[in-house]
């Protein structure tokens, strides 16, 4: 092979390498533009969490109950919204009742919430009351609390006596 032939072959290989690099860049760029942005996914999940919170809170319970301080069953009757029950529960917990006294209705609310959310989400409900010096918390869900990576839909209720109750629905990937 003479000098001109070698030079042509070198140029051809150089072109080949450039074509390879350009192809890789084009394919990488195409795949990056395809991937849904993380922000969009997060916004959708937050909107879904809010829809779940609203649907769950305004759904009604069929005669929910709890055990009072003397162990007697208190029936609340038909048509009590989940939101109303949780607001009363967290106030009564702050007044000294224990979680076990609400366990029957709490497990029903959690079952309902879990059947409402679609895969691949898991759900937990958190309620807290503060303002009178102490803070009382309620957690319905797996584990001791929501994971750090979650999508939350909170709502705050202000009572006349300065007490602030917060109920939040948390979703996270199972």
């Amino acid at each position, binding site marked *: 092979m003479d000098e001109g032939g070698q030079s042509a072959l070198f140029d051809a290989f150089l072109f080949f390498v450039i*074509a390879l690099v350009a192809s890789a860049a084009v394919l990488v760029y195409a795949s990056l533009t395809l991937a849904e942005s993380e922000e969009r996914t997060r916004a959708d999940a937050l909107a879904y969490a809010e829809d*779940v919170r609203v649907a769950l809170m305004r759904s009604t319970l069929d005669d929910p109950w709890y055990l009072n301080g003397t162990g007697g069953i208190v029936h609340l009757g038909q048509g009590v919204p989940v939101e109303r029950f949780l607001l009363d529960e967290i106030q009564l917990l702050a007044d000294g009742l224990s979680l076990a006294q609400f366990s029957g209705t709490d497990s029903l609310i959690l079952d309902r919430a879990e059947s409402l959310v679609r895969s691949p989400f898991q759900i937990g409900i958190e309620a807290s009351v503060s303002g009178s010096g102490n803070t009382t918390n309620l957690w319905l869900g797996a584990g001791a609390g929501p994971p750090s990576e979650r999508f939350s839909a909170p709502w705050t209720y202000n009572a006349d006596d300065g007490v602030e109750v917060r109920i939040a629905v948390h979703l996270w990937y199972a």
Partner: protein
Amino acid sequence: MRGEGGAAGFFEDVHVLIVVVLGMSILLGSLAAAYATHEGAREAAALRAETSRILRAILTSDTLVHGGERALIDLTALERLNASGLTLIAGTHRPLQLVIAERSGVAPRLFFLETSPVGLQRTSAATAISVWHSDLDVRPARITVTLEG
């Protein structure tokens, strides 16, 4: 008339030609693949956006919601809804499927409505809603809208 030098020159050019053609083919192939993928993704995104729009239209439809509250669907209105009513609310003539599955109550109900059979190419959008039976009976439900693409 071809001498020794001429034959060698030809075979040298063939090597170069093969390398160049190969490089060009890879470049053009990847450009075509990227374009096709991009177009497919763009169409899929447009279909997803359309499905979400229809879902929002259903959740805020005056003929379906109870007391003007978003995502609180009136049971009577839902039972009365037919395919032409759904088409009117959705504002599309594409085949559309609506499924509402209650998640509480003694006998949770399932509502299924189709404007026409939805093909295999489809996109879905889903969220949580409430179905109003009465002021004493409001049930949470999953709503899924499936649109043919």
